[in-house]
């Protein structure tokens, strides 16, 4: 049997039962029965009729799922109609208004209906709250959980003088760590560590650097004197390890060994709920599929996640720092542009504009703009800021070297256009709420219109304006669609550092990671969502605190 048909039939029965319970009590009361009896009748007629109808049609035509739905609908409606029409009349028809016992029954029935409706309304709220709770839970569920970690070499199996150390890394001395490097890693790899981790040289320079003598390649850095003339690519393991140690403190050395020699990789992950409720199953599955791996608890939100760079391939080592910085830069530019213009427009409309056609058009236009989908603003940004104004937004006119207009500046201006109508509408309300007596007092003392606005209207309206602005900005902070259109990157090798650098943003990263096939990236996406929500929450509570502070000061 088709499950969809079953669900549809079930839904119909519920709806009919509900309908019966709402309509039948009053009917029963009018005909002289107790309202509760009516409730029971209506409820059971709707439910039973539709279920019986469904069962009957399923029995008669076993392979027609559509008939199941029709059967339940017909059966339920028929049963309800039968109850309504066949319920014998016990009350006297000729009495124009109910009295005595009949009146009591009538009132009881109406109150019963009221209670049912009230429960339904409450139910709507409860469902909304449950949806919010589920949303938060889904995110938390993915941000924490179990992971199966696999090592290239077990940490305590690293060889020290031919034997496994048997101790964790952080108990080893610096000298022992150097020994481990020398004895566990091939020469070629160690030389590569020197180029990568000590010199941080770009890969293009490696062919030049590796035959160079140590003194030349490591100019300005620490190296043992006796190695000065040896070419880099002829160092032995012990020498290379010594060289690395000379340039690193103990913690960096330990990190190098941990990341490059032990190299933990996450091969599987389980969300929080599964990890708590089905631990045994996970244990057996992990033991079967990844016998080398070790199960660990992991919080996907961590300090490394917040401060780390983006990694397009590995969800377990990626960070979100460039995205956070990008989001903040973009939003700063949006505020810098939209706040003054928005407040200016609000002041014009509230304080200066006379009631003529042009000003009415502006007003209507603003409310229409507020309803334009954000993706349209993205297309506007793409055509105007990214493409038409490319020399300006790429910064080439100012000597920057970005290749095209897909920059922080373009994104910021696009978001500014997006939030401008919201800021104007909020600011207008705040300015409108300023009492006229304030303006009159100012005019009465001889102030000009602008003096009145600047010294009296604006300070009084400022809490409202700021609150509205922050709320609009927090909406822009979570916007993704316009940024996709404007060409935000989902991977950056370095942080965005100014208006003319290419950019990425937190919502963009979340979008990208959510749609990647590897499941681990969904964990990273959940962690990024937590970061985003925390930032938004901070912004909003800041708005509330600001409003309370300023308004208390001004009104008292």
């Amino acid at each position, binding site marked *: 049997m088709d*499950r*969809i048909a079953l*669900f549809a039939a079930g839904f119909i029965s519920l709806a009919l039962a509900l309908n019966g319970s709402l309509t039948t009590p009053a009917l029963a009361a009018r005909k002289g029965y107790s309202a509760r009896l009516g409730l029971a009748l209506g409820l059971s007629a709707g439910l039973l009729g539709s279920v019986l109808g469904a069962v009957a049609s399923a029995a008669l035509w076993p392979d027609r799922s559509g008939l199941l739905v029709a059967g339940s609908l017909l059966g339920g409606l028929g049963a309800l109609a039968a109850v309504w029409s066949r319920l014998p009349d016990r009350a006297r028809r000729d009495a124009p208004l109910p009295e005595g016992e009949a009146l009591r029954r009538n009132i009881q029935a*109406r109150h019963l*209906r*009221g209670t049912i409706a*009230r429960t339904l*309304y409450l*139910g*709507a*709220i409860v469902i*909304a*709250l449950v*949806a*919010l709770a589920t*949303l938060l839970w*889904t*995110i938390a569920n*993915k941000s924490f959980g179990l992971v199966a970690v696999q090592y290239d070499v077990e940490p305590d199996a690293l060889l020290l003088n031919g034997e496994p150390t048997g101790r964790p890394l952080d108990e080893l001395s610096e000298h022992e760590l150097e020994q481990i490097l020398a004895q566990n890693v091939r020469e070629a790899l160690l030389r590569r560590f020197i180029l990568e981790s000590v010199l941080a040289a770009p890969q293009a320079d490696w062919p030049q650097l590796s035959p160079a003598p140590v003194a030349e390649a490591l100019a300005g850095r620490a190296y043992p004197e006796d190695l000065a003339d040896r070419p880099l690519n002829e160092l032995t393991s012990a020498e290379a390890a010594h060289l690395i140690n000379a340039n690193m403190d103990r913690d960096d050395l330990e990190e190098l060994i941990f990341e490059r020699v032990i190299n933990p990789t996450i091969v599987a992950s389980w969300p929080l709920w599964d990890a708590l409720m089905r631990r045994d199953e996970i244990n057996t599955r992990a033991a079967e599929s990844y016998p080398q791996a070790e199960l660990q608890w992991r919080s996907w939100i961590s300090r490394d996640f917040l401060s780390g760079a983006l990694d397009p391939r590995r969800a377990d080592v990626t960070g979100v720092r460039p995205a956070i910085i990008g989001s903040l830069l973009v939003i700063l530019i949006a505020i810098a542009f939209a706040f003054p213009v928005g407040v*200016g*427009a609000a002041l*014009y409309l509230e304080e*200066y*504009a006379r009631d003529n056609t042009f*000003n009415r058009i502006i007003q*209507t*236009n603003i409310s*229409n703009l507020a*309803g*334009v*989908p*954000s*993706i*349209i603003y*993205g*297309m*506007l940004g793409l*055509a*105007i800021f990214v493409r038409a104004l490319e020399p300006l937004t790429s910064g080439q006119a100012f000597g920057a070297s970005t290749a095209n207009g897909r920059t922080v500046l373009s994104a910021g201006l696009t978001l500014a256009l997006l939030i*401008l109508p919201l800021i*104007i509408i909020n600011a207008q309300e705040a300015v409108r709420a300023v009492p006229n007596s304030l303006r*009159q007092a100012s005019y009465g003392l001889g102030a000009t219109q602008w003096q009145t606005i600047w010294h009296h209207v604006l300070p009084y309206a400022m809490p409202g304006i700021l609150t509205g602005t922050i709320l609009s900005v*927090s*909406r822009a*902070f*979570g*916007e*993704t*669609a316009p940024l*996709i*259109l404007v060409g935000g990157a989902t991977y950056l090798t370095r942080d965005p550092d100014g208006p003319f650098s290419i950019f990425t943003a937190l*919502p963009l990263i*979340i*979008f990208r990671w*959510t*749609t990647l096939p590897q499941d681990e990236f*969904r964990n990273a996406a959940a962690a990024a969502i937590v970061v*985003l929500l925390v930032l*938004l929450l901070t912004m*909003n509570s800041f708005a509330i605190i600001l409003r309370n502070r300023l308004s208390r000061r001004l009104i008292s």
Partner: protein
Amino acid sequence: MDNQAVIAETKLWNQDTARRRTAPGGFERKPRRGESVIQGFLFICGALTIFTTLAIVFVLGRESLLLVTSKYVTEAGAVHTISLFDFVNTTEWQPHRFKVGIAPLVSATLMSSAIAMLVALPLGLGAAIFLSEYASPRVRSILKPILEVLAGVPTVVYGFFALQFMTPLLQSLFGRSTVEIFNVASAGAVMGIMILPLVASMSEDALSAVPRSLREAAFGLGSTRLETTTRVVLPAALSGIAAAVIIAISRAIGETMIMAIAAGARPNLTANPFESAWTMTGYIASISGGDLAYDTLDYNSIFMVGLLLFLMTLGLNILSRAFVARFREVYD
């Protein structure tokens, strides 16, 4: 003379100073250039919003026009043109193959919006009635901010929610073979949750705006709370509620991220909500994901879709405002 009149007079007086040399009382007055400059600047701020609208219309219109007037040359050397007629006349959407029947995108958009409204309308209206008619002020002061939290969650988070929670839920209810991983039903249902607070708060505003005296009168005639709500308050607030519903539909049509994440990416003219389908917004978002080359068919086609989207939402917004203006019951 009431306050408004005084203010209006003062305004006029201030605005005319530049022209009038002598103020009442015989004082010599200087023309205030600074004031005019500031007023001019503020006017430009206001007029900028007009430019935004004009720019949107110009950009969308121009690129759409390019789509139907350009000649596209394939690698094989064949020359294709696209006629405006193709959009409504054909039902296949594959711009890179010069097939631009827009029906699949529009049908998916309408279907997802309908599903969203099925979720948001009863729940939002129920929540609004509870908040405005039943809840005590204390309960309302707790519940309203919680609903606002739901409204403040970024849509990309709802997309994640649709893919991670709603789709598996639908799959476990209806079976994995029926429900595709990316499907319109899941995206639509989550979109319904997203616009629920919008419907709830706008309807609640409309309900609260009905004067108390109307309710008192109904209670005085012996109505129960439910009868007062359904027979007195709801009809009085109907224009506001209708406006809320129309705005919600417009929001649903324009919603992008949930669709781009959870509804899938293939043009699909179907009535089955459990299949994946490209909505208009989903198409725009997924096509422009990479570096979209300018003046290609794909580039122009997103503006064409965008133009249609803009016209649809604009029409709905205007309709909503017209509703309020035409049917609002004014009580004083």
